[in-house]
């Protein structure tokens, strides 16, 4: 029984130390900085061929729908979004593919994107890979405005 207690207390102490250690040190740049948004995706994260303009880029005030590239969310499948823009203004973000949707991630990321009018979003803890892929796809769509 005593050894069981030691095992449990040891786990608790170890966990506290590990997480505590990550609380020290300088605050990292906004989460986007740790996941740089590369407008030209690496070969492994190449946008799917489907990624294309669904309307003419010339019309600057018309409301258009642009499909972003599909990006791998490391083991969670691909993520691909479609944006609705009027001129440069981002009206809406719709998810085309996202097999794993933890933490209400699509809605939370959409809110952030609409508020910031950009692809610079805060990564959702618990949906890190999905958030990153979402930002990349969003960025690739916004780049085609």
């Amino acid at each position, binding site marked *: 029984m005593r050894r069981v207690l030691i095992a449990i207390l040891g*786990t608790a102490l170890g966990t506290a130390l590990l997480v505590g250690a990550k609380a020290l040190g300088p605050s*990292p740049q906004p989460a986007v900085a740790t996941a740089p948004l590369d407008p030209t995706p690496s070969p492994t994260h190449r946008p799917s061929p489907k990624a294309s303009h669904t309307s003419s880029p010339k019309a600057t005030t018309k409301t258009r729908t642009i499909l972003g590239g599909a990006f791998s969310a*490391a083991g969670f499948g691909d993520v691909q979004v479609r944006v609705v823009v009027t001129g440069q203004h981002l009206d809406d973000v719709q998810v085309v593919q996202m097999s794993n949707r*933890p933490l209400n991630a699509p809605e939370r990321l959409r809110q952030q994107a609409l508020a910031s009018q950009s692809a610079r979003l805060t990564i959702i803890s618990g949906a890190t890979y999905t958030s990153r892929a979402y930002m990349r796809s969003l960025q690739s769509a916004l780049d085609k405005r």
Partner: protein
Amino acid sequence: VSAGASPADRFGAPRVRADQRALRAASGAHVVVPPSRTFKAVFVANFWLGLAVALGVWWLNTPSGSVQSTADALIEVGRVTGLVSGYALLVQVLLMSRLGLLERNVSANDIIRWHREMGATVIITVLAHVAFLLAGYAAQDNAPIVSETLLVLRTYQDIVSAFVATGILAGIGLLAVRAVRAIVSYEVWHFLHLATYAVLLLSYGHQFALGRDLAGPGRAFWIALYVAVLLALFWGRVVDPLRLNLRHRLRVANVVAEGHDTFSIYIRGHRLDELGAQAGQFFRWRFLTRNGWWQSHPFSLSAAPHHAWLRLTIKAVGGHTERLRHLQPGARVLAEGPSGGFTAERQRRPRALLIAAGSGIAPIRALLEELPPGATVIYRASVPGDLIFTDELDWLARTRDTRVHYVVGSRDAPGPQWALSPAGLAALVPDVARRDVYLCGPEGLVSAATDVLRTLRVPRRHIHRDPFEF
């Protein structure tokens, strides 16, 4: 009490029997490796290494200084406890895989102790994992924890089954509490333990679908871990038992009464000399009768393995053991084993002292045949009617120079108190410090005797204990 001078007489086997060890050595069928301290050390080192890798992946995935808010801290604690519980669950299944390598190189005592510690760790860390993550997500969303939980259940992949798995684990954890364990029948306890496999099945989905540290580079490590554990499980639970039972085709030969509530089962089979078992080891026995086929129980051999038969001795304590008394000759038996390192090969000194209580006498009785002559036995029982094998012990006293002290009486009676005190033990066995000591009996007696032996300066490495409570 019981009739017949030696087990060989009762079974009708030749009275004069060859020395078991010489016989098996001559057959050359097997080499039994004694429980190895090296193996145990390597196993333990690998356990810590694996844990370090699992947590190392988390460490690298978590940028320094990224834990800024309470929500961050709660979520990271949830992640770490999740990794620990997933790892501990796999180790737990590995410990119970019955892999021969483990069963014979690590004493059953250690396996049971680790199983208990690991089990507690799995349950506590799983509960912490769930609680911390839900609290963390709720804090992040500024939402009440109940609605956050519902959101998680609705939107997360494979999360419902993971919640079911947590419920099962909590149930198993509750059973481990002694007070609860005492009122639950073995059968219920057994089936809930089997549900651990369901936990593995129900929980792996969410681990791989949602676990940040199981994606990317960590994925290969976890897949390797799962594959290794499942292979061990398959080998230990399917391949090995299948091989043993197809080869030896065990059947009940006879059931013989030993005392008022104790009886022996003699087992016959093919090529038993190639079984590779030693006195002091146990098998897990499954008797294929109408209501007993689904459960298997560990029983030690109560006589050194013979080329024509094996014997196990059982005390009727519950429904299952009571029914075993009425086994018919010819009933099929499935066995898993041999297991345990409570063998004569552990011996380091020329002579041994063996202390037995209750049905702990069974492996001690078997060991006497394989230990060198000159051993001393202290046999503890509360009433004379509980003593069994008295005529066999007489036979061993004659043929193998064994000295037997019967210590009979209640725990508080002066005789037993004296016999198991440092002074008493030193008087009964003056050279105790120069002997190996084999202990088998209820936990209370074994640990009390260990303390006395330590007082008498018996080195720890000369004290061999067999777990009596399975």
